[in-house]
Every structure is written in C-alpha cells, then in structure tokens.
C-alpha cells in the first residue's frame, strides 16, 4: 500500500486514522485524467473521509462511507452486477462510498446516491458506478436514517 506524499491543504491539522491509495483505471467522472486517489479516513469520524488525487492533491472530495452494513443483500445485489463487471468477483470485500457536497449556506449535506464509488479492498482498485436507480431509499430503509 503506497501512499502519496502530498496532502491537500484541507487536511492540515486533521488527524488521519488511515490512508490508503486506490487506483481508478477510468478516473472519476469530471476528473477522468486522474487515475490514483488517496482515501484519508479521519480520526474519530467513521462516516466521512477525504478522497484526493495523489497527483493533484488539491483535487479532493468529501466522501461518505455507505452507512448500510455489508449484510444488506439488497444493496449488494444492486451493485453486484456492476462490481462483477469490473472486479470479476461477487462483491465481497468491497467498500462503498458516496460523494458528498456541503452546502454551508443552506446547511445541507448532499450525497450522490446514484453514483457509488466502489473500492475492492484486496486489490485497492476503485470505480465510480453510475446506476440507473438512486440508492437513497434503500439506504434509508436499511440504516434507519430518515
């Protein structure tokens, strides 16, 4: 597990619990030319992490780990087909994240539930899937978040 040396300014003064480097063979929509990103898990904050490019660290996005346990068969069924297409596996050992946007003016947190970022933990390879279905309803049902 090789980590980049440069970090975004945003992480200054923030304690990092775990830092992993993930290859994104197709980049991410909007940033297709960037193929390698770090995921910085923040200490004492199990929900939010920072995803940033190792080549251009100021290109960063706040991501939210899928709040649904891996036991949610329904969720995995939905993304499994796509995961299988990319990883050739049945979807085990995959972390799911959603890109989050903060609207400070309106104090809103907006997550993109129709384009999860899936990361295969064994191979440290990731893809942002573009699903036809928005997963928000399913996530709310399974995580008791309303």
């Amino acid at each position, binding site marked *: 597990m090789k980590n980049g040396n440069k970090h*975004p300014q*945003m992480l200054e003064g923030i304690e990092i619990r775990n830092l992993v480097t993930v290859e994104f063979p197709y980049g*991410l*929509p*909007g*940033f297709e030319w960037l193929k390698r990103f770090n995921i910085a898990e923040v200490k004492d904050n199990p929900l939010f992490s*920072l995803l940033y490019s190792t080549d251009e660290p*100021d*290109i*960063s*996005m*706040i991501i939210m780990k899928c709040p649904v346990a891996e036991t949610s068969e329904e969720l995995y069924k939905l993304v499994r087909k796509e995961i299988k297409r990319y990883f050739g596996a049945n979807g085990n050992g995959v972390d799911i994240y959603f*890109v*989050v*946007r*903060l*609207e*400070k*003016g309106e104090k809103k947190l*907006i997550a*993109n539930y*129709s*384009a999860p970022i899936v990361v295969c933990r064994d191979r440290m390879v990731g893809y*942002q899937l*573009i*699903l*036809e279905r928005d997963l928000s309803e399913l996530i709310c049902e399974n995580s008791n978040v309303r």
Partner: protein
Amino acid sequence: MRVTQSIITRTLLQSLNSTKESLREKQTSIATGKRIEKPSSDPINFSKADKFRRKIEQNEGFLQNVESSLGWVENTMSIIDSIYEKILRVKEIAVQGADNTLDEEGRRILSEEVDSIINDIVSLGNSSYLGKYVFAGTSTKGEKPFTYDGYSVVYNGNGEKLFRRVGENYSVVINVSGEQLRATNVFTVLTDLKNALDNNNPEEVADLIARIDQVGDNLLNLNSSVGSIQKQLELIKNRLETANMNLASYLSSAEDVDLAEAITQYNVEETAFKAALSITSNAIQLNLFSFLE
C-alpha cells in the same frame, strides 16, 4: 532622517487602508461563503476553480442538449407507437376484407377506413417537436415531410442524420428519417391494401396480412433502435450529472469558507482595525498646538 508629522500620518493612513482592505475581504468571504473571491487572493486555486466552474457550465450545456434530445427521442418513440397501433387496426381490417362473405360495398367501406388511416399516419409522419419536423432528416423546417395524394405517399425530406453534441468530443444521432419510416413499408402495404379492397379482391387482401405483420415487426424494430438512443442519452445524462456532482464537491471543498475560522479571524482583524483607527485618529489630530506641547 527626520520623521515628520506628514510621514507619520501617511504611514498610519496606509496601514489603516491595508487593514480596511483585509477586513473587507473577510466580510466578503463571510457574506458569499466563498474562499476564493478574486484572482489575486489565490491565483493558482482561482484559476483551477475557475476552470472547473467553466467545466460545470459546459456540462450544463451538454445536459440541456441531452434533455432536449431525450424529448425529441421520446416524441419519436411515441409517434412510432401510435403508427404501430394503427397497424393493429389495419390488420383487423385486412382479416375482415379477406373474408369471402364480405360484399363489395363492405370492402369499399373498409377501403375508406384504410384511406383515413393512411391520412392519420401521414399526419403522424408530419409531426413536429419544438417547431421542427421529426421525420424530415435535416430539412426540419421546409415543406411537410410526407404528402398523400390518395394513391401514394411521397417523402419530401432527406435521409440525413441529426447530430446533437452531448460531450466535448461526442455527438449522438437522435433522429429517425422519413426514409427509415418508409423502409418499414408502412405506406406501400397500406396503399396496396386500399387498392386490393377497392378492387374487391379478397385473395389479394389475404396475401397482404403477412406483409402487414411484417410492417408491425419493422416498426417495433425501428422503435427499439430509437430506444437504444434513449438509453444511450440517459447514460450520458447520468454521467454528466455525476461529473458535475464530483466537480461541485471539489469546488465546495476548495471554495467554501470555514465560517468558524473566518469569523474568528474577522474578529481579530476588526480589533486591529479599531486599534489602528484609534492611533491614526490621535496622530492626525496633532495640530500646531499639540505640536508645541
């Protein structure tokens, strides 16, 4: 060097102006919620953020093209569906017309209905979407693509493709030309059926039933090819929306000011400004009398 009163006043005023400027920037930052207000405040990040803001705007433009293309494609599918429904009725007519027990008058009435259906289908073929003929190829604003003179249907459009730009280097064909609609044989088979009914020829009518079925299949195939375009456009739409969400997420982390931090800094600088103001005021108030003191 002698430090004159004017030097003190000028220096204090300059210092005061610079504090004021810094304070104004903080106020703007808090009011707009954006860290990068103008190029000089952080030129590298400003330029990068600006580039991605333009990228979002460009994607919004492509999204508008995708939305209007989807409207066009959905309209096309709906027209082809309506034509297909007419063909189902035409088949019923053909089955009735092929019945040997039906007399000439009965077939004449059926022929009139077929004639009316041909007119309806020609009307559907002349449908427009946002002021443009759907089946005219690229001559979307000229004469009506189809005309019917009671004997045959003539196509006046062309077989050109309509392209819509939906990405930086990516365009999608969104139209089905009248040529393609004509290639389903819908007009030929219907006019043949009308003639067979006019000629009171039940055998010829019976022979046409299989061809009518084939027209139905051709229309379904045509609609499924339009369905593929629709699917492709929806994928592009989702991808553009995801790209914009990612870009907006990046911009929100790059531009949104940390309010708590900004307000704290604002308070510190406000105090400095007030202090500077107070000192300057004292300095400027020095007059000849106080100078003599």
